[in-house]
C-alpha cells in the first residue's frame, strides 16, 4: 500500500527548480559584482589615462619626460602678469602653488581678460630663462591654442563681487605672495 502523500511526489522537482532558481540568481549577483568591480578599477585607471589636460604642477613635474611633446596644460591666469605685444601674449598660470610662464601666439578668447580665469592651453615646453612672480624658471610654455575653462560658479554681475581677489582657498596654502591685479 502506498501511503506517500501526493504532494511529496512533486517535491523533488519543485525543490530542484527552487535550487536552480536560487543558483541562477547567485550567479547573476556574483557576475554583477565582478563586472562592477572591474568597471570601477578600470575607471580609476582611466582617470589618469584620459588626461584631457595636465595641471601646471603636474606639467612642471613631468617636464623632462614630456620634452617638446604637445599636450594641454591647465591653470588660472595671474591677472598682473598679462602683457600683450604684436599678437603675442605673455602671462603666468598657476595651479597648486606652482607657477609657469606662457608665451601664447594667437588671439585669446574674450573671457581671457577676466581675472583668475582658468584656461587650458595647447602647446609644449621650450627652454629659455624667464622670470615669474615667484622667481626664475628655466622653461616656458609655448602655446598656440587657448580654451577658457569656465567653472560652474555663476554670480550676478550686479552684485559686483570683488573678482580681482584670487578665488577663495586658492592661494591660501602657498608659501609665496602672488601680486594682485593692478587694474
Amino acid at each position, binding site marked *: 500500500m502506498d501511503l506517500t502523500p501526493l504532494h511529496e511526489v512533486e517535491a523533488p522537482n519543485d525543490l530542484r527548480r527552487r535550487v536552480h532558481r536560487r543558483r541562477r540568481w547567485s550567479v547573476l549577483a556574483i*557576475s554583477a559584482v*565582478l*563586472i562592477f568591480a*572591474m568597471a570601477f578599477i*578600470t575607471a580609476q585607471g*582611466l582617470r589618469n*589615462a584620459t588626461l584631457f589636460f595636465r595641471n601646471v604642477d603636474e606639467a612642471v613635474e613631468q617636464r623632462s619626460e614630456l620634452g617638446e611633446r604637445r599636450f594641454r596644460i591647465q591653470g588660472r591666469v595671474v591677472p598682473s602678469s598679462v602683457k600683450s605685444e604684436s599678437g603675442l601674449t605673455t602671462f603666468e598660470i598657476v595651479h597648486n602653488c606652482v607657477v609657469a610662464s606662457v608665451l601664447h601666439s594667437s588671439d585669446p578668447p574674450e573671457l581671457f581678460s577676466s581675472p583668475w580665469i582658468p584656461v587650458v592651453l595647447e602647446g609644449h615646453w621650450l627652454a629659455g630663462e624667464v622670470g615669474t612672480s615667484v622667481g626664475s624658471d628655466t622653461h616656458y610654455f609655448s602655446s598656440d591654442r587657448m580654451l577658457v575653462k569656465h567653472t560652474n560658479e555663476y554670480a550676478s554681475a550686479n552684485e559686483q563681487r570683488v573678482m580681482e581677489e584670487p578665488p577663495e582657498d586658492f592661494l591660501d596654502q602657498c608659501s609665496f605672495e602672488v601680486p594682485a591685479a593692478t587694474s
Partner: protein
Amino acid sequence: MLAEIFLVARKDLRVERRAKIALGQVAPLALLILMVFAFALDANTSLLERGAGGLYWLAVLYGGTLLIQRSFDVETDDGNMDALRMSAIGMPSLFLGKALALFVQITVLELILGPGILLLYNVGVVDWVLLIAAAIAGTVAFSVCGVLWGAMSAGLRVRATLLPLLLVPVLAPVLLAGSRAFETALGVRAGAGWTWAGLMFVIAAVHTALGLGAFGFLLEEG
C-alpha cells in the same frame, strides 16, 4: 552547456569554412583598406606610425561588421532560426556559441591584418604581451557586441545599413581603447596601455551579461 556552445560554434565555423567568405573576401578587403589609409595619409611614415593602432582597429571594425552580418544572414536565409529555436539548445548557449565562432573568425582576420600593419606601416612592437592581451580583449568585445547587435538587426530588410548604425556607437569606446592600448604596445605613446585593455574587457563583460539575459528576447518570433 559547454557542449552546446561548441556545437553552435562548430556549426558556424563549418559553414564559414565551406563558403570561405572570411578568408577569401573579407581579409583581402581589410588589407586593401590598410593600403587606402596609406594613400589617404600620403604615405607619411611618421603619421602612419603614430596612427597605426587606430587604423588597425578601424580595419577590424570594417571587416568585423561584414563578418557579423554574415553570421546572421546564414541563420535567417533559409529559416535556420526556426530550426535553432525548435532545438533544445538554450539561448545563452546559442549566444556564447555564435560569439565564439565570431571570435575565431575575427582572430583570423586580425592575424592577417597584424603583420600587414607591421610591414606596411613600418612599426615595431615594444610590448608583445600588452599587444596580444589588447588584441584578445578587443576581439572578445567585438564578437560579443557583434552577436548582440547582429541579432538586433537580423532578418530585417535594411540590416546592411542598420547594423553599422547601431554597432559603431557601441564599439566606439572599444575602438578608442584598442587604439590607445596598441599605441602603447607599439611604443608611440607612453601611457596606460593596460588600463585601456582592461576597459575593453569590462565592455566585453558587460555585453556578455546583457547578451545572456536579452538574447532570447531578440530571437523570439512574432
